[in-house]
């Protein structure tokens, strides 16, 4: 695997497909999360159209426990969201079905069933990241996880190679999607009313009985405990 020239034709095709999938995942997430933040009118153009025979099974959209029957319904939901800011922290992708589209449908392709996989494949994209809601700097910061399955856009199968120099040109379209909030922001975890109960009385006593502000002046021991260092965990 150290030299591409040593690869067999099948390995080379697999390699090209995987690298193309990685590039696509990067270009796609950049464009998609930008649209969610700034260009919500444009959301439907990211999705594959429903099947011709009236089958509503694709695109399948699950968003935080809700299933949306069509793209417009999802867009409607997204448009009622307040300001959102997405930061992708983790991104991974995988070639799901390398032969999703028959070789004959690739224009300028070889027509060989084992070739042009990087144009024919469907891709799974797994994203995890932070999402800031409501306000740009002060709003609650949550974590989210989202998985997409992308399928080739039949209208963009004209070239043999795919580049993303000009950003995402919708070479692939979303076939299924699952979005979940995975962590709630710290300031949303406790109701202000419930938080008024002084939880930290013990800690203030540890601090030599001094009248300290809760949380802001914990002392070194408190800070170490909060960072998980007193339990023998974390970086020394």
């Amino acid at each position: 695997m150290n030299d591409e020239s040593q690869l067999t034709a099948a390995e080379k095709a697999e390699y090209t497909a995987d690298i193309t999938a990685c590039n696509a995942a990067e270009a796609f997430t950049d464009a998609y999360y930008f649209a969610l933040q700034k260009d919500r009118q444009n959301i439907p153009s990211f999705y594959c159209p429903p099947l011709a025979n009236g089958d509503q099974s694709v695109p399948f959209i699950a968003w935080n426990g809700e299933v949306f029957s069509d793209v417009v319904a999802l867009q409607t939901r997204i448009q009622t969201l307040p300001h959102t800011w997405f930061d992708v922290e983790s991104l991974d992708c995988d070639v799901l079905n390398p032969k999703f589209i028959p070789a004959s449908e690739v224009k300028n392709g070889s027509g060989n069933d084992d070739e042009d996989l990087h144009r024919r494949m469907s891709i799974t994209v797994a994203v995890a990241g932070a999402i800031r809601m409501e306000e740009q700097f002060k709003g609650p910061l949550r974590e989210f996880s989202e998985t997409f399955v992308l399928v080739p856009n039949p209208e963009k199968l004209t070239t043999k190679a795919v580049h993303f120099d000009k950003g995402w040109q919708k070479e692939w379209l979303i076939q299924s999607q699952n979005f979940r909030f995975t962590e709630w922001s710290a300031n949303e975890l406790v109701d202000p009313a419930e938080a008024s109960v002084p939880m930290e009385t013990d800690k203030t006593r540890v601090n030599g009985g001094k009248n300290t502000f809760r949380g802001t002046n914990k002392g070194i021991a408190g800070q170490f405990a909060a960072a998980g260092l007193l339990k023998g965990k974390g970086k020394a």
Partner: protein
Amino acid sequence: MSKMPAPTGPRRGGGIRKHQRRDRDGDLVMGATPAPRTTPKQSHSANLTELRVTGWTDKAEVQRVIQFLERHAAKRSSNASKNGPSNIIKRTRVFGDVLHIFVRSDDVAAFGKINGFSFASTHGSQKLSISGSGITSRDGASTEQATSSDGNKVEHMKQTIEVLRGFLSRRYDADAKLLNLSTITSDEEVRKLGMFETKSTQTKFIPVLMKLCDEQLPTAEAKRDAIHSITVSNNDLTNLTLVSDLSRVLPDTKNLDLSGNKIENTKDLWLWKNKFRRLEHLVLTNNPLETSQPNWEQEVIAWYPRLRLLNGREVRTEAQIALLDAPKQTPRPSNVNIWLDEGKVGENFLLEFFPGFDTDRNAALQKFYDNNSTFSLSVNARARGGAGNQHEKTPWDSYLPQSRNLKFISGKRTRFQRRSRGLDQIQKAWTAMPPTRHPPLGPPNYSMDCQPQPGVPDPSGQYPRGVTGLMITIHGEYEEHRTAKGADEVVRRAFDRTFVLGPGGPAGVRVVSDMLSLRAAGGTPAWVLKPKEEAMVAQVRQATKLKAEMAVECLKAGNWDMDAAAQIFNAQKDQLPPEAFDP
């Protein structure tokens, strides 16, 4: 340092008086009781009044004219010294045959008194007339208006304004609330005036028209009520420079017709980009744009958020536009698991897989994976959201060397090598992972969704286009026995894992793709309702006999407000299927 003499006043007379009274100009004030100055001295040119002096003929004599005016006005001014030289004319300027002089406003009266005085020019006696604000002419009329030399111009302007006013009233349709500016040149009166024909006057046409419009409809509300639509069709416009003022004066216009012009590119429309924020209907038919620029519609639609009809075609539904005004909602925790899993394929897989993964990874691998299965792992080491500082900060140890987080791993080969395909590679990857223990399946430990996934490869080859499998996304935490770097402890890790399942393999179900994303453990409140919310769900269920999921849905629709949820339930209860209720 030389002693500067006072600029205008007479020289001091050698200590005759110790305390001489001087006014602020430095002039000695003569007389016992100087008139009290009522207005403060106005030295800035902004406070000067401009007067116009006409009636003289020879430019060479301007200095003499000024001296003449000064001399006579000073005698009549309360400010100037009656004896010494004065400079009550502060500045002068000559334009053509008009001499502009700038004087203090309290001196204007003095100039009014010398209006019409005869000046002894070398060309004979010349009657000087002074005009400006505060000066009355000899016959008593105010001279503030322009003098007769501008008469023609003024007359012409008045006439133009009259024509435009007539045009405006002819072209305004009060019933349709339409301002019709189509084919402006076809209007007889405007054509006679020739205003829309030369370039220099063309540019003024719409601004003047808008000025008149402003006069008649002074407030924004008045304009909004009176004018809903504007037509600027058939004017041979190549861009919007001539008509750009419309968007400034009538920003609330709802319907706009630009058809039959010569607009070739959306760039020519940029003057109105993001203007007319309430525009609902835009017509651009019969413009070269339609054929010369493909996809021009998309750009134009994006400029106007409320645009519903473009060239008569619906580009947004009413409901979509209504959303712009809808209140924004921050999503609440959702404990609803989407589980579209007929035959419990996904459920049985998970029930068996996680215990297998924890106890005997190789057996689980052999049972559910084959040589086309893929596995990859990505570490999200900088998860910043969530509970933040409450995260367990455990090092990532042996996970990092095989993390394929594309945000950090940019080398092509590394990316490719860190993906495991087939039993051997996956086994190697799993062996490198420390021992784990997943909690029992089901809420509240996990948030899980299972949904159909079409186009999964068919190992039998029977369906070349693929078959429909399942996509399972699962979020939760597991315990890890950490022994790296000499540690011996149990730590928690949070994970998001995506399985795509397809037919095949010894178990009848095989994993086509397995992607694992790891993050510091920070709790599960994203899918666990708070006690308060649980109580609300119980309350709704008791009142409505709805099933738990439906009660949650109902509360969600009402944004967790009991009254709103009750209204929604009452409005929709007749349409709900019987399955929505408890048996």
